[in-house]
């Protein structure tokens, strides 16, 4: 039983737990990567088979969104540095900034959808638009998961000003590390999707 352990055992466990969460996130990303790999192969095959394939013109706002998402990765790194010193106290502004940028990105993606639909391009208009809505939608959904994680961290950090005490079981550095892994992957995935959809055509 937990109480039977010595303090050293406890300390060892805590690190192990956080380490484990990073591995878990890594594996989750592997399977998310497989999901998008499957969709990519569908995209490539579908495009190769269709003589009438035509790419939808890119909504310009996507470039701004991309910049926003990439910026959020930078702010998240800042947050990680800020919380690197455990005594960092109330330094959670960077976390909040990351979250705000993430929300802005999702909002921006939604605007891009609105732009397309007002131009008469819907999910079923042509295969390219089908893939556009599907891929951006799935990516956005996964990003929302990241935003939730950031929100949780923000809440914990802001409530007690002392991250460590608030969540005794979650090492803040490792927790942000795992979240950052996920977040950066989503950033990279977005750039990949942008290239797939609009550079490749």
């Amino acid at each position, binding site marked *: 039983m937990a109480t039977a352990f010595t303090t050293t055992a406890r300390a*060892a466990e805590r690190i192990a737990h956080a380490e484990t969460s990073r591995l878990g996130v890594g594996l989750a990303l592997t399977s*998310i990567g497989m*999901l998008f790999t499957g969709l990519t192969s569908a995209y490539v095959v*579908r495009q190769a088979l269709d003589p009438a394939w035509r790419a939808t013109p890119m909504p310009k706002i996507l470039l701004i969104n991309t910049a926003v998402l990439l910026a959020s990765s930078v702010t998240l790194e800042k947050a990680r540095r800020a919380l690197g010193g455990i005594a960092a106290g109330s330094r959670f502004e960077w976390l909040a900034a990351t979250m705000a940028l993430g929300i802005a990105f999702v909002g921006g993606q939604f605007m891009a959808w609105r732009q397309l639909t007002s131009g008469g391009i819907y*999910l079923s208009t042509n295969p390219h638009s089908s893939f556009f809505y599907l891929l951006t939608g799935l990516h956005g959904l996964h990003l929302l998961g990241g935003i939730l994680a950031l929100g949780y961290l923000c809440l914990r950090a802001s409530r007690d000003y002392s991250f460590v005490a608030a969540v005794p079981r979650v090492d803040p550095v490792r927790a942000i590390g795992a979240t950052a892994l996920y977040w950066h992957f989503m950033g990279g995935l977005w750039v990949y999707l942008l290239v797939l959809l609009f550079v490749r055509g």
Partner: protein
Amino acid sequence: MAEQALVHEPAKGFIRKYVFSTDHKVIGIQYYVLALFSVLLGMVLSIFMRLRLAWPMEKWPLLQQVFPTGFVGGPMTPEFYLSMMTMHGTIMVFFVLTTAPLSGFGNYFLPIQIGARDMAFPVLNMLSFWVTLVSLLVMVAALFVTGGAPIAGWTSYAPLSALGEVAGPGLGLGQTLWIISIAIFCVASLLTALNFLTTTLNLRARGMSLLRMPLTVWAWFTTAMLALLAFPVLLAGGILLMLDRVGGTSFFIPGGLVVSDRLISAHTGGSPLLWQHLFWFFGHPEVYIAILPGMGITSHVLSTFSRKPIFAYKAMVLAIFAIGFISYLVWGHHMFMSGMSPYSSMAFSITTLAVGVPSAIKTFNWLATLRGGRIRLTASMLFALGFVSLFVSGGVTGMLLAQPVIDIPLHDTYFVVAHFHIIMGVAAVFGIFAGTYYWFPKMFGRMLNERLGKIHFWFTIAGVYAIFMPMHFLGIAGAPRRYAQLTEFEFLTPLQALQVFISVAAFITIAAQLIFLFNFIWSLRRGKRAGANPWASTSLEWTVPSPPPHDNFGAVEPVVFHGPYEYSVPNAPEDYVMQSEPVREING
């Protein structure tokens, strides 16, 4: 080396302890019970199939009262048959063969066998069980909706599955629920897989190096890797299929279709083969997801009851890995007749035959394990030996089906039905039974009745051979699968006697499973009390009481000194040396 999960306090209260439990042992049992329910349901569905196949025009007044739409005018309707067939396949593959050996036994025994106190993510673990249950409920709901369950088979080939009600009964709401259920199942399996992988990598006890893990753990670990990479692709396919059905997209639906005299004008340019590629990219690894844990259990049990080290442990590990890896390169062998490029067929043919090599190695090693042993024929051992026999019987026919040129006459005939039922269905079930007779004492603290177990074995082994061997003959003679009856063609009518024989054999075999069910329930209460190690086994789960305490090992941290199959070590005091026993040089 040893990294332990944060130990949670034992849960208090019935709900937290047995319903929303985060204890891997409770979750393992929950999965097992879910699979038990599913297998019973799946067998009932197969009874309906066998009724129709053996006596297609027979009237069943009693059944007609229960299912008025399924037995219009007395005989079973063909669409009812097809929906039974679809649901039988789906439920057996997903909710039995994926759930029992991996999520059931794996959840219960993977942590204990590596000396961990729980899974790496206990809450996630609980979540994956409940998500699986939701998936099962959605699937079962498809049986009760208007229009009935889907009729497109467990492979749900597009565009049949994509067009909706216009293509046939059950393809409306029933098919939609099928896709939703499968998508939910994918998510649950991913959660399970990443939990298994993290646990195996991070939570092994001190001394439990990778090459000291029991072969069961290696099998679960590899299976989890397969699941992690295969289920996302099925999910991708499912999403695309759903969008084709409800979103008006054309991923799988080509243009210019005329279905039931109606022009389908909303779609254009989709590719039916794309669905097949996505499905089988998942589908073939799925076959190994079903069978690999059975291989692990069989290795474990054979070694235990031969009282011999497993022969060529490292080769066994390598073979599991090789099978897992190659299983990603063979999916095209399901598509030799699909219109895929004949060049691809040639490549897939070679990779498929290559997967036979590690499979054969495993068989040889099992036989070599028996050689020179002191074989004790417990019920568990009987089923493990049955597994080996079935694995051979189902495996050798793979040599035929792997060749596209032989696949021309045999593709989609009963020969294929015989092949995959023996190797993926029945062999895997034998693995589950071997595991059940072996681990029941550990899980519930009481022994299963051995005599009933042996009777159960004899009925089952004789039964499955009587059911599935004749299907090879049907297939050779050209009988196509998925026919609601085989009497509409002249060349098939001489085969009807075989169908009747198979049905009778199936009914007896299914009835014999009640012996197991009775034994299971009776032994829960009345079975002989089991000690910590009733089989004189060596792996870590046998070092703790039966059933194990909440955190498995109490306050003691288990330490492992050597590999898992040290039986009949010369000069050792007993004929087995447990993994946790610090002894002098053994391997030296």
